[in-house]
């Protein structure tokens, strides 16, 4: 297994947010983490990369226990994280944003260069010196993904990559994610949009109120409209 999460519990102050979350991601797999707003998707990701201080449980990445490591060490192991709110550095240019993400090559992961990323996201190549703050939402979303790929991760946590984007940009995003998959990057993508998830994912987990309540292939999920309607429909 590429990534195994077991019994993950997280708290914000007195509030218990995640309850015994567990899931697995295989080598080269794209796994969707589906759930409504506030279900705990982002908190799950933030907990995995160590951005939530109060967390317990076991997180194994490429056979190594990373549960108690600080964020930067987890990321340096090759576990990339693309946050939901984009959080690009608005004062920095596209090139500089990529520079922040740059990490050495990794033997077991595809190596990304600026050129390769500009080929993957042609828009970015046209605005190398533009400050991040003067880009559209879609361009910013591409930049966050490209920035994380500069770290040559072997697995990426993608937090709601389609949120707030126009259908055309979403299409580009699907292509980009499929390219990443083809290159050999394992991906966990959190989504509210089942349609989007279906286009890219091999398997899916459904999270509701901080608990995993379903796990299976996309076909298995489609065979259970009751689950889909109970946890995903708006």
């Amino acid at each position, binding site marked *: 297994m590429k990534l195994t999460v077991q019994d993950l519990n997280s708290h914000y102050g007195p509030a218990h947010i995640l309850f015994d979350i567990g899931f697995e991601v295989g080598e080269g797999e794209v796994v969707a983490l589906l759930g409504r707003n506030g279900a705990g998707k982002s908190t799950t990701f933030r907990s995995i990369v160590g951005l939530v201080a109060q967390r317990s449980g076991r997180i194994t990445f490429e056979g190594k226990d990373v549960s108690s490591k600080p964020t930067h060490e987890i990321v340096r192991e090759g576990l990339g994280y693309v946050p939901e709110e984009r959080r690009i*550095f608005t004062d920095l240019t596209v090139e500089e944003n990529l520079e922040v993400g740059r990490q050495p090559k990794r033997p077991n992961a595809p190596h990304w260069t600026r050129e390769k990323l500009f080929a993957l996201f042609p828009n970015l190549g046209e605005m190398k010196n533009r400050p991040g703050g003067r880009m559209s939402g879609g361009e910013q979303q591409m930049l966050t993904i490209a920035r994380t790929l500069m770290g040559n991760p072997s697995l990426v946590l993608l937090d709601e990559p389609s949120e707030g984007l126009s259908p055309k940009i979403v299409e580009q995003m699907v292509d980009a994610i499929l390219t990443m998959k083809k290159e050999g990057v394992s991906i966990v993508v959190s989504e509210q949009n089942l349609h989007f998830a279906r286009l890219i994912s091999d398997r899916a987990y459904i999270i509701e109120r901080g608990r995993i309540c379903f796990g299976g292939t996309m076909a298995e999920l489609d065979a259970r409209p009751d689950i889909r309607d109970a946890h995903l429909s708006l």
Partner: protein
Amino acid sequence: MAFYVVQFLTGLASAASLFLVASGLSIIFGVTRIVNFAHGAFYMIGAYIAFTLTERLSGAFGFWGGIVLAALAVALIGVIVEMVLLRRIYHAPELFQLLATFGLTLMVEDLVVLIWGPDDLVGRRAPGFKGAIDFFGQNIPSYDLFLIVLGPVVLGILWLLFQRTRWGVLVRAATQDRDMVAALGVNQKWLFTSVFAVGVFLAALGGALQIPRDAVHHAMDLRIIVEVFVVVVIGGLGSIVGAFVAAVLVSELNAFGILIFPKISIILVFLVMAVVLIVRPWGLFGKPEAAARKTPGLTVNPWRPLTSNERLMALAALIVAALLPLFAGNYLLTVGSEIAIFVIFAVSLHFLMSVGGLASFGHAAYFGLGAYGIAFLAKMAGLPMIVCLLLGPLLGCMGAAVFGFFAVQLSGVYFAMLTLAFAQIVWSIAFQWVNVTGGDNGILGLWPSSWAASPSRFYWLALGVAALVTVALRAMVFSPFGYALRATRDSGLRSEAIGIDAKRIQWTAFVIAGTTAGIGGALFAYLKGSVFPDNLGISLSVDALVMVLLGGVETVSGAVIGAIVYKALNIWLVSQTDLSKLVLGGFIMLIVVVFPKGIVGMLEMLAQRRKKASPPGSPLLAKPIESAE
């Protein structure tokens, strides 16, 4: 004409050191969000070490090498301070770090006297720059010309460092979003340490380069830190270019202000700062900050009114305090009165800081205004004490109304700096308007009427007022006004969205806090029998901050305990040792590291832990610390 050119060049030369120190402060704040009060102390140590090294090492290499070595040595001290002290408290509430660096400053002030003695030290002249250049009959020291060139050179080097190196890119990224930088695999710890080292290096270099111009003395830290705060705020926090422009501006204002307005030269700089902050709240080159991601608080105890048992305990404590005159002598009673007065002062700032979320760095202004109010009423109008006590604080109230109106337009560090500027303006007026205020000599001979003249009666008066004020402010915390104020503190946007006029609420809180401080000041004037500009000075403002933070900024009434502990310790230490600042500074740092929630915050936590099983308080009073995502 030549005279003015020379004056201008002198200003430019002074700007060089100011810029070095200010840019260091700015860089450190940008990344670590720490307002490094100890920056002036590092500047001072830089000067002292450079003095020693340049005396010991001979020749030109000895001098210049000594300067650089001194700056490097201080940078190393900075690294140790960062790793041992600051790393432990990055997650403490914002102003706690200020408290820690303030403690450090206190310690350094005593340490330099211990090591180098209390006398001014005059350093060597710079080899190669010993003479002066004749300019149409006016002399310009050639060292000044060196400094004038050095400023832009350092600016250029810093610019290259930040724009052209990976380190610079990382620092700029971290200035905006530290967590995200960590989430991209960058080790924040070392980034912070290196940034702190660079900032401290610049401060120490600024100090070391001053030795051929000025004597080295043990009060140079406070003088520079105030100026540097002003520079950084005018230029815009985090902007190096801004720091440069503002350093030049401030130095020139100083150089020419003294010629044109000798009477109000001190005010001039602060006036400019106030205007800049009102017109461009983020400084000349600063950028409006994206709503900062709130650092989660440490305590999660919801605020609640005291239970009836706790009320009885507080009442019992008050009764015990009121019994003090039965067994204490006059000295102790005077000390008791002073502590009670400082409880009033601290509680008023606590109200503004903890309930309103507005940390004022110039709260002493309203304390002092209350004191001067008494002085004017009693000495000039000859009114009796009871009338004075009722009317005197109104001066503090009016001051708070005027300054508060402008101050609440800003928030965070900028609010703090604007309040500091206002306090300095008031201080300058008291200091320089000798005809009315007596200037440095103050106004003497204010004695209480006979009904309050004896130490025990005055003590009861002070204690009673302190208790009254504390209860009143507490009641306000749990009143609708208090809810509205806390709502604006926790989320300005959300509270505006439900129809709370945030600015008006904050302004009201500012006036309440200012008036309360004025009450404290009024009593203080009678206690001391005199009023001095120091009553509105920075050190008094800082004392108040320390008291609040020591008690626990996230508590409802921690300031009461903070004031008692700090003031009692302070008075006791001054009477016991010559090194009171060293001990006090060490104590403050210890508290910060060991009890980052303040004394009361820690007690609350212990109490909480003991009865963990009991259900939480009313959800209405719960204070959301960090919202789930």
